[in-house]
């Protein structure tokens, strides 16, 4: 078995001569190098970077107390607050959670300091008629009710303030549901622009680019390589391909010159391959 292999090997050597081993080695090397070269910068792959997708989870955003706004929920809590003394009037209770009774309080707070006055008036009780007595009682009831409303309003305000503070503290701890989300979006972190560096550069250069639709002829396209330092300064640029339309190409040169200094720093020195075209401007007669 082994001898047959040897024979075969010798035959091959005889056929391909003395350089057989070298050829074999070169062949193996080539197979190894080619895939490496394919992924090297010598063969750039023209894949347009997908625009960043920001996923904001609005539906599941954490809410401290989802039931807080519902009337039945508030009324349930109010029951313990409301002292059971004025039980005879069970109906006014569902009303307090609504801030409608506000118009009345301004009228009633005044009587509060007057309360001492009201009581002295009670002295001439014997002379006061029954009807007057009833009205006095009514007024007292109203004053009590208004005082209770005031208390409950204050309690509600305090509770809302506490909830707001808690929600704020919690929102600071929320983590992005997207693991590789761009900075400055869901979790509130990131730079002032609030987007990824390449998105910012894209926006910045686009803003510097002026071209009238009346200058655009055909479907011009150009590719430019731009290298920025971490300070946002343009180190160098090179047209990889030009459109051949002088108006279009010159407008790009102007945009590049205007973009020689970005308005903010980059996380690191970066190289951008920018593809300019007029896809979004083509709808013209």
């Amino acid at each position: 078995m082994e001898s047959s292999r040897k024979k075969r090997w010798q035959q091959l050597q005889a056929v391909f001569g003395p350089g057989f081993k070298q050829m074999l080695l070169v062949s193996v090397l080539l197979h190894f190098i080619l895939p490496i070269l394919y992924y090297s910068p010598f063969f750039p792959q023209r894949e347009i970077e997908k625009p960043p997708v920001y996923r904001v989870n609005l539906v599941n955003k954490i809410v401290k107390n989802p039931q807080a706004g519902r009337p039945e929920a508030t009324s349930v809590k109010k029951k313990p607050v409301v002292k059971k003394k004025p039980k005879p009037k069970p109906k006014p209770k569902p009303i307090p959670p609504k801030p409608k009774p506000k118009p009345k309080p301004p009228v009633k707070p005044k009587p509060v300091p007057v309360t001492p006055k009201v009581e002295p008036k009670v002295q001439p009780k014997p002379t006061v008629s029954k009807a007057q007595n009833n009205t006095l009682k009514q007024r007292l009831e109203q004053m009590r009710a208004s005082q209770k409303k005031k208390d409950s309003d204050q309690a509600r305000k305090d509770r809302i303030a506490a909830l707001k503070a808690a929600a704020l503290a919690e929102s600071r701890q929320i983590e992005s549901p997207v693991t590789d989300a761009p900075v400055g979006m869901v979790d509130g972190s990131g730079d002032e622009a609030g987007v990824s560096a390449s998105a910012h550069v894209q926006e910045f250069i686009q803003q510097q680019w002026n071209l009238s639709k009346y200058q655009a002829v055909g479907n011009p396209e150009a590719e430019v390589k731009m290298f920025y330092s971490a300070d946002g300064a343009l180190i160098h640029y090179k047209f990889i391909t030009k459109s051949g339309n002088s108006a279009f190409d010159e407008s790009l040169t102007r945009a590049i010159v205007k973009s020689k200094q970005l308005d903010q720093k980059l996380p690191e020195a970066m190289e951008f391959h920018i593809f300019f075209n007029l896809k979004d401007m083509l709808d013209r007669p």
Partner: protein
Amino acid sequence: MKYFTINAFVLIMLYVLCSTSYAARIEISAPGEQTIPLAMTRLLPMGVGGAKPAVVAEFQEVLQGDLELSGLFDQVDPASFLSDADKLGLRRNEIDFYQWRMLGAEALIKGGYSLSGGRLTIELRLFDVVTQRLLTGRRYVGQVSDVRQIAHTFADQILKSLTGEKGPFAAKIAYISKRTGHKELYMMDVDGHDPIRMTDHRSIVLNPDFSPTRKELIFTSYNKGNPDLFRKEIYTGRESRVSLKQGLNIGGRYSPDGREIALTLSKDKNSEIYLLGTDGTIHRRLTNHYAIDVDPSWSPKGNKIAFVSDRRGNPNIFIVDVHTLDVSRLTYEGKYNATPAWSPKGDRIAYARMDNGVFNIFTIRENGSDERQLTFGQGSKEHPRWSPDGRFLIYSKDIDGGDKSIWIMRADGTGGRKISARGGKDSHPAWSVHW
């Protein structure tokens, strides 16, 4: 040794791969701003001759009007100009581009003028503010009365410099006006200035068309009783009848090379489209149908003609191949489509369509797709004709049968403005080639 070499090679390759920095790929599919910020300074006197504010103002008004109509520019407010606007410097090293960059300008027009012995000299420059380059510069010499023509010519030059294609402002517009009580042929500048009456037929003159090669016009006139086709040399004023066949000799249109004329003849008791030589001899009959065929308009290549026919019931636009005589229908929508005009670029055909008793201007591709309505609102808009560069359209607008006037707009329907004077009952405009 061999293994060492191989290992070294592989290591080098890996190093090359790892050391290359990540290049982000970005696509920008539209500019951020779709107008060019332009600063236009006033002409300043150059040495000899005193200041002539009237000349400067007229020049400024004409140039500004043309550039505004082009739709290319967003003009920087002159009130914001800094000290450089008051300096005559016409060389790039004499201009403080930093000031203009601060104002956001990307293009800058500077100029000076001198007037000596009635001879006006105007020097003009267009600069790229961002790259600090001279884009174009011209010196014009003429009479004071030429100031408008100089402004139009420089506007054309600016468009050529920024788009690669010359503008159409230094041209003429022929039209029919009834301001003398009769329909006569008139000619004016593209901005409606300086109207001149060209005929005194005291009858009915219709359908003018400019020769693409010579300074002459053809038109139909009832001067001799019959609607005959006339030719008129503009500078000599000489007039002659090109076609005087019995019946209609109407809607004459020069071929793009100026060697033939397409027109409607009804010598055989039915209107058909014919090709004539410039001497009036019939070269070919293009249509042969019992329906009425009128209003021919050449494709820029000269191989097809769009025309109006009611062979399918209502007037619609059809296209006939000049060589094979194959006829194809172009419009299907609407009940009345008329007066086609083929764009000099060849991409679209403009025409007027009547809906609810009102005509509006539409354009459509040669294959019948992408039909677009360009005009809206009250008043009939008819007789569309293209500028020689295909950037603009002129047409007549009739507001409720009252004031009929000539209007101009961009090819996309924007920037419409009236150019002819009031009270003329003007119609049937035609735009000349560069004058």
